[in-house]
């Protein structure tokens, strides 16, 4: 599936995820980098020199002296809290985006039912497909003032017919657990057209992410993002 960060963002959810991930990576590299630099510097600088005596407060049986400045703990706490504050605000922003589908009258609703071992997709007109999720591409002309078109917003109502599964489209950075007796919602918009035959990353792009029995490894579905006309044709005929 390619190295992380190098796959083009095919949906706003993936784009935003990528930005947030990059932010965390930068913070991680800076913080971990600083820690490791200090760590290795000390390991090198304070290694035992031949013939050097032990420090005066060297521990011996029954004795360990007090040492250290407790204020450093407070300073570190303050630094980390500020860092987390920044990271968390960004996380909450993306989470709010992911949790709340837009109020879009031209959204496509699909019921997603995970079962041992596959995915069944049920459209509003009753058409059912197993193993393939076909959705319309984002259509900017299909605003909320217009009717009879699909905007590209796809809202999924996800559940399970048997055990605890987890529905994920790694390509779009979408995931939600498929739990029996419960309906969880997820949503996305796909920016560009793509089908498995021509774009291999759409092949088995939908997978299960929770161990659900012996067929867990084989529980996938292909993803087809279609142009408005092609999708209309699929929607009406079911093929």
């Amino acid at each position, binding site marked *: 599936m390619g*190295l992380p960060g190098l796959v083009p963002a095919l949906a706003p959810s993936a784009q935003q995820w990528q930005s947030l991930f990059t932010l965390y990576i930068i913070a991680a590299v800076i913080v971990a980098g600083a820690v490791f630099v200090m760590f290795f510097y000390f390991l090198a600088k*304070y290694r035992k020199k031949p013939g050097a005596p032990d*420090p005066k407060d060297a521990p011996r049986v*029954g004795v360990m002296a007090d040492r250290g400045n407790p204020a450093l703990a407070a300073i570190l706490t303050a630094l980390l809290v500020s860092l*987390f504050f920044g*990271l*968390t605000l960004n996380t909450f922003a993306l989470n709010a985006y992911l949790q709340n589908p837009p109020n879009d009258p031209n959204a496509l609703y699909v019921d997603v039912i995970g079962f041992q071992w596959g995915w069944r997709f049920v459209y509003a007109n009753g058409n059912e497909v197993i193993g393939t999720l076909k959705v319309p591409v984002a259509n900017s002309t299909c605003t909320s003032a217009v009717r009879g078109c699909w905007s590209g917003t796809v809202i999924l109502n996800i559940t399970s017919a048997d055990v605890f599964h987890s529905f994920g489209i790694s390509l779009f950075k979408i995931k939600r657990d498929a739990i029996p007796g419960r309906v969880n919602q997820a949503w996305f918009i796909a920016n560009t057209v793509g089908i498995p035959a021509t774009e291999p990353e759409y092949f088995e792009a939908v997978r*299960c992410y929770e161990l659900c029995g012996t067929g867990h490894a084989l529980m996938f579905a292909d993803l087809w993002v279609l142009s408005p006309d092609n999708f209309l044709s699929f929607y009406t005929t079911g093929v």
Partner: protein
Amino acid sequence: MVDWHPLKRWLFTTNHKDVGILYLFTSLYFFVAAGLLALTFRFQLAVPSNTFLQPDEYNQAVTTHGLLMLLWVLTPLGAAFANYFVPIQIGARDMAFPRLNALSYWVYLSSGLLALSSFFAGGGTADWGWTTYAPLNTVEFSPQVGGSMMGLALMLLMASSIVSTVNFLVTIFRLRAPGMSLMRLPLFTWGWIFTSLLMLWAFPSFVSALSLLIADRAFGTVFFTSPQGGSLLWDHMFWFFGHPEVYVLLLPGFAIAGDLFSTFSRRPLYAKKIIIPCFAIASILSFTVWAHHMFMTGISQSLLEAFNITTELISIPFAIIVLAYILTLRGGSIRFTTPMLFAVGSLGLFIIGGVTGVFNSSVALDTAFRGTFWVVGHFHYTIVGGGLTGLFAGLYYWFPKMTGRMYNERLGKIHFAIYMIGFNLLYFPMHLLYDMPRRIFTYDASTGWGSLNLLITIGGFTFGISQLIMFANLLWSARRGPQASQDPWGGYSLEWGVPSPPPEFNFPEGVPIVSATGVTYRPVAAANGGHAMANGGHAYAGHGAESSEEHWSRWPIVTAAGAGIALWGVLMGLPALILGTAILAVSFVGWGYESLRGRETIEAVGEKWPFDRLENLSLGMWLFIFGEIAFFGTLFGAYVFLRMNSPLSGFAWPQPGSVHNIFWGGFNTIILLTSGLTMVFALMFARQGSYRGLQGSLVATFALGAFFIVNKAFEWRDLFASGFTFSTNPASSIYYVLTGVHGAHVVAGLTALTYLMVKALKARSTTEAGASVEIFGIYWGMVDAVWVFLFPLLYLL
């Protein structure tokens, strides 16, 4: 002890050092077993579309690899060192309850054998991942007997662990030598204090969850098959235990690393007075983060945000500890011995794991990571990198103390190098596989995951093979290595002030007296030629002047054997169940008889703060009650969850009086509370010296308790007849589990009461019996208190 036949010594010892050695060998045995399981599934994943393992074999392998490593390897390996060294580090001559200590070990072994035998129990063993999610864990989807057997093995292990934590906490709080204040304790002992406290609160919650699962699988209750309970009920209960569990796994190795940083840089620990509260804060916070394992389950946005924040916050105390460890090096004179290398490795790998943990705290980033190999990479860096590496550091560090010989340093360093290379080859690439789901037995070549998986497998085999270097080195050196000095490292904890290996009662020169300038020893003359006195006045003695008769008992291994056989028989056949129960009964009688003959516990001689006024047994019972509160509390939590979910899924919870007879329940409440009153009388009579009053009160308590049980049995019979059975609905399921578990506690109490009545008959004074009466009174009070909550909950609300 040196004159004992090896069989007698190793089967019947209650000496904490020998028990530590037993834990060491057994945990490493399970390490090899679980490691081999990992190699099989890494081999399977090395190339796409591999057919080395069938899907169900693969699922069993990953499940048991996880369960064995977490529960039968890591913590027991920590327990090996804790058993051997915590009593010495606090300046005591053994654990507070040596026979219970041996019991914990043998029950651990018994449970591990039961777990391994589940592979052969027809249909294979548990194959649902160590997380055991519902409803995959129910009989409908996983009917195999081996799965239930694994559940019983886990319950048996929990019993061993809970007893062990109580033992350690009483020991550490009550048996410290004079001058050994809590703050002076080494970091390893402090780490074990927090590990024990975490286990004491988290393991009973796991027992609750397992109880509900076993009830579903064996008795047809509907906890995990009903929409009111189902997946989320298990999720909450399991992860409430599961998250603190990962700190149980981390803390011992991580604490050892701290002590080693100090020892090998020749400087005191930096800000030890901050490190210890940080461990405390992290332990408390560990109970507030569990739902970060549930970010994708569809819980509310506010809950998601709350758990996101608590998860971030928990990294702060760990960051402070990491900084303190690094600052310890400053101004030092660092020797890179094998233990120090492993301690450095432990900290470095933990830093990486901790950083990826911050990524996992982000509920938005989790849409990518949940259920993928990123998570697998994260937890192996923290648990194996931080925890296991620190424990291996401890193994090298303490090897000369335990054997009196030194291992081969060059081989140790070679082990370290290959270990680190193998570790990082194995686990780092997993972070790049965040598209790849966990626990898939194969994948297609078109995914492009093949090359990274091959690299990971090569790393895995490298990592596994590197451990053989350590085994060879240590096994050979134990016999043929050069003699080691008493203190080859310049350590600061008390074990470095005694010979290698330490003599039977640890301190040959007498009671250690600790002060700011060091440790001295106060010799104690044995006035009566070898028997430790009942009042503990001679807690220490010179070499040979103490009786080794105290240091063995045949009952721990017999009890463990009985328990293991009985549980195996529950699933596999009545003859084994009868045999096991018979063995258990014999062992209880034997144990009780042994206690009646005056096998006293080790008495305190020094520091006891903050438990100065509580005796060892009382403190032990109060700690056990603490665990019981966690156990019943989690069950009550399940009740609340089920009831709150009922309206949503269209189930109407029965109104008060519609199912249960309030009068009947109320009458039984009065019976039970009266039995509490008779226990108060028993204690009063014991203190007053009235034999007849004491015996009469105990008999009355027994009669009332038995009446309660008989009454409950009739009540159950009536409910069954009216159609209110185990599987009727969530309300019936939780009713039967709550009252059944409570009833089992009453029956256990009545059994203990039988022993008490015998003891009261035989006692030479009522004060002698009074101590036991008080202990039992605490337990009986808890049983009453739980009912005081249960009755309104089940009958009135």
